[in-house]
């Protein structure tokens, strides 16, 4: 009996979790509103919910803060590594109106959802020197022109290219357009030894990475996913050109077959193994692909450039993380001060040095010492300044799912570009309808 009960019990615990979360939600009428419009007051110890602190630098900065503010200590709460799990835990806390987390380390695409649900506080823009931050990064922290989160880490796409192969093929400059990229690729592959190389790859598996790559393709062709008023615009010629760059790439094998399974790490392994001539990737690959411990076959042989586009330079999508203050927590004044401290130039500099994560303060990108250590910074700054955030939708989860569906079905040949985009337009229209 107990065995069967256990089996059934396990099945139901899952249901129970869902249900209990729902109950917490139904009880939140009104309370959230009051909390969100309240002031940032109160001082005392706070907790800071974030993903993994892989470098230990976050703890170092917190220790520094705690030394100076013995009565307003900050404690780091490490959430699971997967972004979805982090979001789930933060949402569960918000729905229970828990005071547990004060500062939330939000992915740039969650801002709209958290702000619209009144889970995070609106922040006073005048208390931050936002003009010294990269503007696109600041925009990711805004919902309906109000600031809800302060950018701490940024990220932009780069085109990694095999400089040695391009040089050998007589291509002197990295491609600025897709046509140039294909051209350069053909020249490199003309040599029999290079004939088996893959031309181009990005993150094309059906997950958030595909949303990023698909948006970039559309933007780089001059299109957009949503226009400035938030209306979907994927049924345009520009969007079709963008998606066709990926679809045709798969058809002509310029994008190798295996790339449809690539997430960041799969692509990185392929690039490091010397299988790719061009690779769209985040800055983190730079250090690893340059490792001289034998793990990378391309160390010293590659360079980075801004993403190419249809008729000129491409437009990257923004990644990164912003800090927000939970609407339900105490000691919000402390939280505000801590965010100021964490986004100060010194803190960002130490972060960059320790983690090589892209900072959000513009000045660091021009710091000669930093450039010496991270030679890609100049290119990255250019990429971020040109970048466009992913759609800032309250139902972002559904929006990104629809975008992945469209891009994936077109790239795997299940649907034509036109059909996939027409369907996506319909879906986005219903998802973004007010």
């Amino acid at each position, binding site marked *: 009996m107990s065995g069967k009960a256990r089996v059934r019990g396990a099945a139901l615990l899952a249901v129970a979790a869902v249900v209990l979360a*729902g109950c917490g939600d139904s009880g939140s009428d009104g309370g959230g509103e009051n909390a969100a419009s309240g002031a940032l007051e109160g001082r005392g110890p706070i907790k800071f919910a974030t993903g993994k602190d892989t470098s230990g630098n976050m703890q170092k900065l917190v220790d520094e803060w705690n030394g100076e503010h013995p009565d307003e200590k900050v404690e780091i709460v490490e959430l699971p590594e997967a972004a979805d799990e982090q979001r789930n835990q933060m949402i569960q806390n918000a729905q229970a109106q828990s005071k547990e987390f004060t500062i939330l380390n939000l992915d740039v695409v969650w801002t709209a959802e958290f702000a619209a649900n009144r889970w995070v506080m609106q922040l006073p823009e005048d208390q931050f020197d936002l003009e010294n931050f990269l503007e696109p990064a600041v925009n990711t922290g805004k919902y309906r022109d109000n600031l809800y989160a302060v950018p701490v880490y940024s990220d932009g796409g780069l085109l990694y290219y095999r400089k040695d192969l391009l040089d050998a093929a007589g291509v002197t400059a990295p491609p600025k357009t897709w046509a140039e990229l294909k051209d350069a690729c053909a020249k490199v592959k003309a040599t029999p030894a290079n004939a088996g190389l893959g031309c181009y790859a990005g993150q094309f598996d059906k997950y958030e990475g595909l949303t990023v790559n698909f948006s970039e393709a559309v933007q780089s062709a001059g299109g957009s996913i949503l226009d400035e008023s938030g209306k979907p615009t994927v049924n345009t010629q520009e969007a079709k050109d963008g998606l066709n760059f990926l679809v045709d790439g798969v058809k002509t094998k310029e994008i190798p077959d295996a790339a449809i399974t690539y997430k960041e790490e799969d692509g990185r392994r392929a690039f490091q193994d010397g299988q790719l001539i061009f690779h769209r990737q985040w800055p983190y690959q730079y250090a690893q692909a340059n490792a001289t411990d034998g793990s990378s076959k391309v160390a010293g042989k590659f360079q980075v450039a801004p993403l190419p586009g249809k008729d000129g330079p491409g437009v990257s999508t923004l990644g990164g993380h912003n800090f927000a203050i939970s609407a339900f927590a105490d000691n919000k004044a402390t939280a505000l001060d801590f965010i100021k401290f964490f986004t100060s130039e010194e803190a960002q500099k130490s972060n960059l040095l320790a983690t090589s994560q892209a900072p959000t303060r513009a000045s660091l990108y021009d710091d000669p010492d930093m450039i010496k250590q991270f030679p890609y910074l100049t290119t990255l700054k250019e990429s971020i300044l040109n970048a466009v955030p992913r759609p800032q939708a309250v139902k972002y989860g559904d929006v990104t799912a629809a975008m992945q569906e469209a891009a994936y079905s077109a790239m795997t040949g299940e649907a034509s570009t036109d059909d996939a985009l027409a369907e996506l337009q319909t879906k986005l229209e219903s998802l973004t309808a007010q």
Partner: protein
Amino acid sequence: MTATDAPPQAAAGAPKKQPSTAKSDPQKHGRLALLLLTPTFLVLALVIGYPLIAAIRESLYQKAEGVDESGFVLEGERFVGIDNYSAIFTGESAERFWNAFFNTTFFTVTTLILEIVIGVTMALVMHHALRGKGLVRASILVPWAIPTAVSAIMWQFIFTADGVANEVLNSQILWTTEGFQAKIAVIIADVWKTAPFVGLLVLAGLQIIPNDVYEAARVDGASAWKQFWRITLPLVKPALLVAILFRGLDALRMFDLPFVMIGQRKQSVETLSMLAQEEASQLRIGPAAAYAVVLFVYVSLIAYAFVKLLGADVIGEARARAKETKQRKAKAVTA
């Protein structure tokens, strides 16, 4: 399980005081039984009854949709009756639902068959291994000890484009893309992980078969195959059916393997649990609960059918055995 340790005083006290009356008076007997069982029922009501009822209630509600003028999400939820259920079975979501339903059933049937065959083989090997019995048993059980999500990541590495699977098969199969190969990848990983569980349960069944039955069969000149078919299989059947039932119910709830290894929203491997999870993660609690309830009903029906048709005896094993021995005794007497 929790209840057994709760009322020891009652159990210990009652028979001492009035050992004969408790046996002879059926009414008192029943009251004592009720008293002893109450804690169990309370715990069951709390951990099973309440969530189930709450889930069913939740599946009849829907959260307010949309945002107000200043961009804030509307709050509150409203009663929608069976809308959440009818939404599952109409339009595009019906297609998705039946696809997931088919996948779930397909995975359950295929993995069950493979697990039974491999599990029984494993059990026979473990049972007959003369030397290093302990080592063989321990090593066969290793996959079962690994958390599913972890083994899913492991198999993900194996099934990447330049992974071990393609290396060994000398092929270029893209296992994690849409298509039948994704189903095969899930089945392989699932069977690898859970066949040892079936093996272990069957082994337990094998060990209670007395050796003299085989000796007698050998004296009668039965071949090894005949021994297996006529003696081993019928005698191990109760244990095997329990294993099948547990595995079947488990497989119907399959989630982590396709989710972690192949990815979300891939038609070829999407299961019913994944649909419920996706709705819940998008904060549509009502529809998520509706999916969960539908899955629950499906699992219950299968479990009921198992118990009724195949006679998988999970609950009343002791009772049935008692009855059997009684019948046997009666037969012996009449004979």
